[in-house]
């Protein structure tokens, strides 16, 4: 029998360069010295968190530390030097190492007919020479830097962050895009704490918890609550009361794609058993569950398995029906469903007393009953009705906002979609007309432009980013360093590394080690093309569709 030591949480530290001496030095930093080390369990000591979940990073003046719109899983504590946060207006995309999308003119589009090379993945390597990248002194990883800091200071409103300042924690804990960019004004050393460590610090240290929660309540929670339809009627005072009573919870693992890949071969029942429970069927409802980020499964016991009734995504909520009926005096009202985390989910639990005071009283005034039917028909569906949803949830296709669906009953396998993609992307298609199938639908191996884009976490240069205007996830070829982080993170294997060639068709290699230069490539929804996604446009049978998976359940793409 083969044996294997059980893998432990800290088998893979954040940085292999963190030494015990470095940890001792960090323990003397004021913000860390104030932490009560005795509150931490023996299995998760503060020293262990610093050694395994944190790393020190040095930045030169002008280096960009975080970019507005990026998804990151780290918070930062400034140890020395000054950083600047850009408040308004935000830095332009080109300065952040991103691609500016511009639609081609008719003649530019037409010129692709004769400009396209017969050799795939040809790049004009000259253009990489003016890139805003430099290698950091300690890690050797390329960073984007600002070339003209004074100009930024002149034209943007900024604020200085001094040593001791903590930033980036809300985006890291909430799995939300960064709200502003931060760059080094002087040479600076920063302690970067990954999400897991930050979670432990918040959990075991009262000081960090209250600081993080206070900032969240002040900066983000009110805005979030007022944006939801449920609380839009509340004035600032009442909204603040709801915000003060709300509890923050995170369930599942931030890097859910790793466990998802490990569980791919497990059966559905076993997968559901492994999912962290947020609320259990039969329990008394204690508050309204609001999903801030990630996805949650809503299921009921069915035979020897569980039937997925629906799923909740950011902005959705559950529990209002049960709470309302209990408030109206109905006895023994319990939750009719179990809610579990699909990967990672960030939940706000608004206690029942707060809901009763600020929501149900308002509903009574308005005689509002329209919330009831929306949940009632959940329980009417047959197994066949929900089969597609069950499959989509199991395969996590619910994450996609532009999933490439092929109607196999229409598709004549002519590959016109593949050819069109190739013609519009340097002679190399950005997807494979193959993938998982359900009934007569195939989800092809094409980037789904996920709601929770795990591919973006960890990109050292921010080359892969979400276009803030169109919402699609795109890669800036100029700043992609070919590190494969995104390709390895994508749970659906929809990012491919391509070896590039120069304009003469010769393979481009790194002169230091003669290894080929590779770039991450994936579907960009034909950003810049006049047609939109060429695959959809080129299909003579109208078999290819790009869909938000929610539409699947409303029958929107069945009819088209």
């Amino acid at each position: 029998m083969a044996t294997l030591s059980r893998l432990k949480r800290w088998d893979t530290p954040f940085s292999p360069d963190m030494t015990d001496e470095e940890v001792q030095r960090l323990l003397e930093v004021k913000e860390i010295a104030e932490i009560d080390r005795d509150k931490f369990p023996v299995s998760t000591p503060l020293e262990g968190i610093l050694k395994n979940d944190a790393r020190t990073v040095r930045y030169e003046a002008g280096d960009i530390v975080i970019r507005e719109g990026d998804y990151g899983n780290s918070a930062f504590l400034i140890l020395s030097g000054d950083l600047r946060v850009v408040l308004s207006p935000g830095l332009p995309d080109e300065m952040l190492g991103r691609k500016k999308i511009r639609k081609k003119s008719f003649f530019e589009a037409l010129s692709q007919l004769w400009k396209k090379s017969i050799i795939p993945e040809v790049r004009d390597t000259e253009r990489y020479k003016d890139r805003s990248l430099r290698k950091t002194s300690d890690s050797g990883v390329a960073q984007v830097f600002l070339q003209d800091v004074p100009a930024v200071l002149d034209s943007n409103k900024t604020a200085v962050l001094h040593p001791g300042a903590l930033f980036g924690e809300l985006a890291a804990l909430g799995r939300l895009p960064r709200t502003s960019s931060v760059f080094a004004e002087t040479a600076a050393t920063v302690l970067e704490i990954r999400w897991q460590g930050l979670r432990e610090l918040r959990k075991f240290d009262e000081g960090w918890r209250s600081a993080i929660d206070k900032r969240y309540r002040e900066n983000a929670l009110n805005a979030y609550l007022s944006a939801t339809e449920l609380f839009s009627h509340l004035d600032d005072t009442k909204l603040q009361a709801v915000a003060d009573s709300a509890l923050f919870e995170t369930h599942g693992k931030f890097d859910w794609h790793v466990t998802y890949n490990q569980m791919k071969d497990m059966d559905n029942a076993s997968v559901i058993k492994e999912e962290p429970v947020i609320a259990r069927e039969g329990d008394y409802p204690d508050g309204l569950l609001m999903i801030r980020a990630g996805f949650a499964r809503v299921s009921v016991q069915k035979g020897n398995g569980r039937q997925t009734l629906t799923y909740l995504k950011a902005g959705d909520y559950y529990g209002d029906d049960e709470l309302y009926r209990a408030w109206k005096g109905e006895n023994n009202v319990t939750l009719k469903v179990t809610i579990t985390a699909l990967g990672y989910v960030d939940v706000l639990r608004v206690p029942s007393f707060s809901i009763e005071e600020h929501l149900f009283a308002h509903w009574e005034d308005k005689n509002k009953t329209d919330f009831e039917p929306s949940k009632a028909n959940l329980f009417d569906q047959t197994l066949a009705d929900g089969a597609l949803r069950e499959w989509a949830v199991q395969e996590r296709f619910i994450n996609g906002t532009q999933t490439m669906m092929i109607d196999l009953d229409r598709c004549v396998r002519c590959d016109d979609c593949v050819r069109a993609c190739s013609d519009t992307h340097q002679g190399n298609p950005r997807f494979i007309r193959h993938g998982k199938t359900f009934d007569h639908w195939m989800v092809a191996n094409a980037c789904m432009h996920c709601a929770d884009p795990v591919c973006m976490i960890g990109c050292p240069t921010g080359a892969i980013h979400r276009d803030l205007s169109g919402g699609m996830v795109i890669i800036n070829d100029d700043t992609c360093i070919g590190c494969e982080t995104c390709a390895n993170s994508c749970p659906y294997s929809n990012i491919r590394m391509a070896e590039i060639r120069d304009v003469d068709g010769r393979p481009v290699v790194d002169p230091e080690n003669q290894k080929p230069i590779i770039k991450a490539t994936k579907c960009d929804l034909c950003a810049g093309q006049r047609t939109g996604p060429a695959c959809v446009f080129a299909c003579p049978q109208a078999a290819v569709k790009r869909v938000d998976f929610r539409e699947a359940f409303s029958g929107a793409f069945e009819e088209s």
Partner: protein
Amino acid sequence: MIRLWIYILLAVLFFVFIGFWTRQAEKFLAEPILISGWALFASVAFLALFSVRKRLPFLSLAPASRWFMLHTIGGFLALSLFWLHMGSLWPKGLGDEIMAGLFYGVTVSGIIGLFLEKLYPHYLTRSGVECIYERIPNEIAEIRSMAEDVVLECARETGSDTLGQHYLETLHWFFQRPRFFVNHAFIGQSAQHWVRHQCQILERYLDEKERGYLKQIFALADYKRKVDFHYTAQSILKGWLLIHLPISIGVVALTFWHIVIVHVYYI
């Protein structure tokens, strides 16, 4: 669906208009044949444009699905105009007969192609497997290799060569390359029957352990049968264009020649 009916209505109206115009031209002793001829030429030229559109996926020239719809309706319109132009089903004179032959060829191949494109996808989906056409030879080679591994393991583990012999005598032929092409083309069940039969006739000579291996061979053969169907259907779906396109090029070329001849010698 509404769009389809609108296009059909427009095509009918166009045909009625051309028909009415030619009648009027006849009444006033003009050249009705020129009217129907140029209308036919316009419709043939429009049909040919679909092929050009396919090569320009980066231009916003309406989705290919709309072009395909118009191409299909335009094909039937061209056939109607062709009959109107000739005044009969078959012309006289060798040159015109060749042209008519090609025109009927392209029409019939188009209609058959349209029928196949509606028929095969459904059956391909129901086969339960999906294959990329270019990878089918590799897939078959992999299946064959797996089948041979099973046969060798059976011989090694049971010490009996019954399954191995039968494999060499019959099943090897099946696993060699795509089979039952014609039968698959007509959605026949011959391959399924043949595989089942070959396994059944062997079963009585095997012990329980060998039957386990035979089951594995049967599963692989059944999978191979589905891959074979994909090979057949996808070959036909790609292949009919190799008939339709060259003939249509011939039609377009002869149309130009016909126009020149008519204008030089007839008018």
